[in-house]
């Protein structure tokens, strides 16, 4: 295994899903009554069926020593299961993994903290849980404290810490474990921007020091910035791997570029709610055409009120898949009234002109709220991309999210004689 830190060979993980009975929280009393019923009825009608669900299937890849590998994929694609296997929390069902060196995982840091204990005590506790020896922690104690920046609160119980301080301390401990292989889940999302930068810096210095990092993230820019290689997991299998930019473009392409039309099931507990959200081009009632970013884009929202609803307001926001708001709009600002004087249904149409967006993946978030009751209903669409037409493809791929309306003027060269 020269130069290879991790070798994953046709790895699979299956979970048994029980239909008819919840497998998670089984109760002894339920099992006894079930047995009892079966005993008397022979066969019983509440027979639960087992279904095997493969969270990971036939996964193979290698990670070289010192490599920073980014793993991306949608929720439920199997990323967390993979990390759980690599960090030995759960056993694989089949296949084999070879890991060379000490592994530390940053899966949701701070889980090893005890809220009643002080920061100082928790450094020792968490270090030990992560596999550090007592002497080792004591040796690195000052360094850990300095990196975390919580010196002043070292003797305060961590239950009084802010979530940022919590994460800083936890990351500091894990980072100083000096692992050969570091597994990082979506943990950096909590800290402030400045600390995120330091964590990423620390991660890079870890990688620079011949250490291997596996980084699971939705923050695609960080994956591009940090990783040399990326892996896209879809449905428990590797969809593609290679340069982060290329993998990410496949990932982005995996979203829909077709018109969205979602009917939402009515919820009797809500007196007013969103019942349909659709995104289409102004003329694409014909459906299956890809959404074009050159034409005006239309968002249709249907509201259904069971009771008269006053002071209603509707908000719309277009976001990147990482959660940055590109632009937003709302009915009070637009001077539009969406209230219901009596029970009923109405449609609200939002239009924005074409040519504004670049070929990226976006998410639309729609919220229904009122001054008195706050948010009443909310919906976020699946990622959707707006595709440029064949004829209007740009010769050079652009950075950014929106198509800047920039006037270019190139002067004739002046001859200098």
């Amino acid at each position: 295994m020269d130069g290879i830190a991790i070798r994953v060979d046709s790895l699979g993980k299956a979970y048994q899903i029980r239909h008819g009975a919840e497998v998670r929280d089984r109760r002894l009393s339920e099992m006894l009554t079930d047995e009892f019923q079966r005993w008397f009825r022979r066969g019983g009608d509440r027979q639960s069926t087992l279904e095997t669900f493969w969270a990971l299937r036939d996964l193979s890849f290698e990670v070289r020593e010192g490599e920073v590998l980014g793993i991306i994929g949608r929720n439920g694609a199997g990323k967390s299961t993979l990390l759980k296997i690599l960090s030995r929390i759960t056993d694989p069902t089949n296949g084999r993994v070879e890991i060379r060196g000490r592994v530390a995982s940053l899966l949701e840091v701070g889980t090893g903290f005890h809220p009643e204990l002080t920061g100082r005590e928790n450094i020792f506790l968490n270090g030990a849980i992560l596999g550090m020896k007592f002497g080792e922690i004591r040796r690195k104690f000052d360094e850990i404290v300095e990196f975390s920046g919580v010196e002043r609160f070292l003797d305060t119980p961590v239950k009084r810490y802010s979530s940022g301080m919590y994460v800083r301390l936890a990351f500091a401990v894990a980072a100083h474990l000096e692992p050969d292989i570091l597994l990082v889940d979506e943990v950096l999302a909590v800290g402030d921007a400045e600390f995120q930068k330091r964590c990423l810096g620390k991660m890079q210095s870890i990688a620079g020091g011949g250490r291997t990092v596996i980084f699971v993230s939705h923050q695609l820019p960080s994956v591009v910035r940090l990783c040399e290689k990326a892996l896209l997991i879809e449905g428990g299998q590797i969809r593609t791997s290679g340069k982060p930019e290329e993998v990410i473009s496949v990932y982005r392409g995996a979203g829909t570029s077709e018109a969205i039309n979602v009917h939402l099931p009515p919820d009797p507990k809500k007196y007013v709610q969103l019942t349909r959200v659709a995104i289409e081009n102004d003329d694409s009632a014909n459906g299956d055409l890809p959404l074009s970013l050159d034409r005006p884009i239309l968002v249709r929202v249907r509201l259904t009120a069971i009771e008269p609803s006053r002071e209603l307001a509707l908000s719309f926001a277009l976001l990147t898949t990482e959660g940055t708001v590109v632009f937003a709009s709302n009915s009070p600002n637009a001077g539009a009234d969406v209230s219901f004087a009596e029970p009923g249904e109405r449609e609200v149409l939002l239009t924005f002109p074409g040519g504004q967006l670049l070929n990226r993946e976006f998410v639309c978030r729609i919220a229904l709220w009122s001054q008195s009751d706050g948010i009443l209903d909310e919906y976020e669409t699946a990622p959707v991309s707006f595709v440029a037409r064949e004829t209007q493809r740009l010769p050079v791929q652009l950075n950014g999210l929106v198509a800047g309306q920039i006037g270019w003027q190139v002067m004739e060269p002046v001859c200098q004689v």
Partner: protein
Amino acid sequence: MRRETLILEPGRAEKEYWRDLWRYRELFFMFAWRDIAARYKQTVVGVLWAVLQPLLTMIVMTLVFSNLAGLPSEGAAPYAIMVYAAMLPWQFFANSLSASGNSLVGNAPLISKVYFPRLVIPIASVITSFIDFLIAFSILIALMLIYQFWPSWRMMTLPIFTALAFLSALGPGLLLASINVKYRDFRYVIPFIIQFGLYISPIGFSTTVVREKLGETLFLFYALNPMVGVIDGFRWAILGGESTVYWPGLLISLTATITLLLIGIDRFKRAERTFADVI
């Protein structure tokens, strides 16, 4: 630096099991220390509780069995000391059993997020109860001073019987812990088991009394309760003098302890593989 290669495949964890446990040995004390530190921080009465519980139970039992029922003590030992000598290992056993039985569920977030040998958790909770045992032990010394009762050389053998108490709590503790993960309502059964044990174990009365009532053969069945051997040992070590050990009984208790421990470890190891998926 040569790096160790770790291989993960189905059933592989089995082979490294004990070596891994040894590697994480410091964690036992870390977890025990965490529980103790947290408990004594939250409640000022934490220490007091460790003392009051056995002390009050001892007083009640002395009143009932000695003053009301008129049962004899063992040899020349004051009845209160005889009861307390049994109360100590019993409390240790009862606390360990309920703490280790609930330990896995109590540490669920940790189990589903970080790897370490799972066996550390129930064992650490037995160690935590051991600290309470040591605190309660100070009451024994106070009692001895009050009654002017001086122990003999046999007191030196107490660590052996303490170790036996440790093992006899661990076996059922592991068993309960693994059942508890699978069936969440099992925790309601644990207090009942403990209460039941308090009555059937020879705590408020001498084993000699039981043996005389039951006869030799039946007593051997009675000795299947691991606590019978442990309590006998404690009394033999603490009371000295005429207090005797009934060897066949001790041997049976010892066998029961070891059997339960092996079953407990086996069950635990089997259940362990799916903890993270179930918990």
